[in-house]
């Protein structure tokens, strides 16, 4: 079966500042630096990484808001990398995004109805206002805002954080997309309602078999929610596998460190944590060889020289580390 999404060594580089007097060639930020990936229909894939790992740039590139530098994006078997104009806009219909901050991602002056109907308006769908309203109400109810009529005329400041995020989800669903990008959709919400939103996304996946790309820096949130996990570091995927495999048996030292840094809510399981010093280096001056070697606790000499390829560990699990090969 054709995957819902296929990326072939996708790259997105930005110029860091303009070419100036002192350096003729602008230096490059390697935000996304060669990502190949297949995501099946109805699958939930978690992209895990720290800020600066390129996961947000990847999302913007998938949305068509950034042009990839090289590589291909295949969407349901069709190459959409170089679409323009109407065809690009049409693709927008099928890939939608939910943003991190529900307080910021709704226009404060638009009512719930206007916000949810906006995608229909942009794509000139359902011009009949009664039909449009029916669709909006349907989307709100799918997003768990019931009774939907009572929400139509409300403004964002009259809603709680969870309700706002539901409105954003409804606005993403109204075009009936095949792929939903969710960028940290619960990190700004109270712990007590995070599960509600996660369950809602899982339910939408089950009902509509939507593919969900879940971008996060927190393993805890996705542990029982994602089907597969891809760990990103400096624009690359360093480890990918089924959720169980990655959580139980992480192979890449970076994945191991990230997992050990997640605080466990049980005081009896306190342990010495593996804390990496320093921060993700900027993606301009990439380290030679393995890009993780300067922070890697188990780095060897050869890591400085060789850029490790992805090593398959099982049918679904692979990690890009020289030490795994042995």
């Amino acid at each position, binding site marked *: 079966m054709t995957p819902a999404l296929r990326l072939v060594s996708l790259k997105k580089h930005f110029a860091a500042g303009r070419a100036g007097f002192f350096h003729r060639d602008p230096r490059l930020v390697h935000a996304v630096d060669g990502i190949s990936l297949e995501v099946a229909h109805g699958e939930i894939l978690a992209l895990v990484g*720290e800020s600066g790992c390129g996961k947000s740039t990847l999302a913007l590139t998938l949305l068509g808001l950034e042009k990839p530098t090289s590589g291909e994006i295949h969407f349901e078997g069709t190459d959409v990398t170089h679409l323009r104009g109407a065809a690009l806009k049409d693709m927008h219909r099928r890939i939608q995004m939910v943003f991190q901050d529900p307080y910021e991602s709704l226009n404060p002056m638009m009512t719930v109805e206007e916000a949810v109907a906006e995608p229909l308006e942009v794509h000139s769908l359902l011009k009949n206002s009664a039909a449009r309203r029916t669709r909006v109400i349907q989307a709100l109810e799918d997003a768990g805002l019931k009774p939907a009529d009572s929400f139509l005329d409300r403004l964002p400041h009259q809603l709680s954080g969870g309700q706002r995020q539901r409105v954003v989800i409804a606005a993403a669903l109204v075009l009936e997309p095949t792929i939903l990008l969710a960028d940290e959709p619960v990190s700004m919400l109270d712990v*007590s309602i995070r599960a509600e939103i996660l369950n809602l996304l899982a339910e939408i996946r089950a009902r509509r078999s939507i593919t969900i790309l879940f971008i996060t820096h*927190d393993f805890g949130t996705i542990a029982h*929610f994602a089907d597969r996990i891809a760990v990103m570091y400096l624009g690359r995927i360093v480890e990918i596998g089924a959720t169980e495999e990655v959580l139980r048996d992480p192979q890449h030292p970076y994945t191991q460190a990230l997992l050990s840094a997640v*605080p466990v*809510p049980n*005081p009896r399981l306190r342990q010495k944590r593996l804390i990496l010093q320093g921060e993700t280096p900027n993606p301009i001056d990439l380290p030679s060889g393995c890009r993780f070697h300067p922070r890697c606790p188990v780095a060897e000499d050869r890591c400085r020289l060789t850029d490790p390829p992805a090593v398959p560990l099982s049918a679904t699990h692979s990690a890009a580390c020289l030490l795994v090969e042995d």
Partner: protein
Amino acid sequence: MTSPLLDVRDLSVDFHLPGRPPGHAVSRVGFTLQPGEAMGLVGESGCGKTTLSLALLRLLPPQGRIVSGSVKFNGRELLALSEPEMANVRWKDISMIFQGAMNALNPVASIGAQISEAVRRHYSFMTPVEARTRTAELLDMVGIGAARAGQYPHQYSGGMRQRAMIAMALACSPQIVIADEPTTALDVMIQAQILDLLDRLRRELGLAVIFVTHDLGVVAELCDKVLVMYAGVTAEYAGVDEIYNQPRHPYTQELLKAFPDLSRPRAALNSIPGYPPRIDALPPGCRFAPRCPAVFDRCHIDQPALHALTPEHLAACHLVESES
């Protein structure tokens, strides 16, 4: 037992907004803190955590008033102090890392200058050179390194800015530091670094720390005891092991079920339906009753008293009361 470093009893804070009934933001909350002890103050947003910590420092906004209670620091009643005396207590005895303050650093002054300024404001006898020496010492202590004193906030990453805030809070060698959501909005690895730093400072300097947070993982890793607040009242107050392994209040139990636990990846996450009540429209009985899965008739009428299961384990729930 020695007398505690901080002894808070029956502290209540009301908020008076024009044209509204007074809101009871904090009602009769009490706890103690020993030197070098770490306490977690947890609950959903709007449950009174931040208000309580501001009240300890008497830094409430103009609408807020402490209406009853006592806050004793080393046996000294802080609520009876004059404002200049209290100003002396703040920062020198008890200091606070405010939520989001790392994004409120002055963008046009160097980090070193901002810390020196904080030092000199409280130690007016220090010469600029002495203040600079102290600043260098502080920057080394929090792992920034004195060499970066001359840099400006935009040259610092989020984690480094938070370290600078910690340095500022430690400027006058306080005995208690209140850290309000010190790691929210930071990446996992940076979060771990900051928590590691706070834990190290606590051990090395003998600091008592109050972690105000909604992150139950942080509390489990670092704290000795936990105060769970709900809608301004104490829900449960106990040692960290009791809270996580024998939680008695339904709110604590629900909160734990809502928090993801990597050691049990198959456990489904739970959510607590509904929202905390508004502080000016509190339910008549138990404040958690409208959302409680174990609610029964009495909960809607009677507000449960804080009941001692053991001297160190308190919970405010009718179920606990009837059991014992």
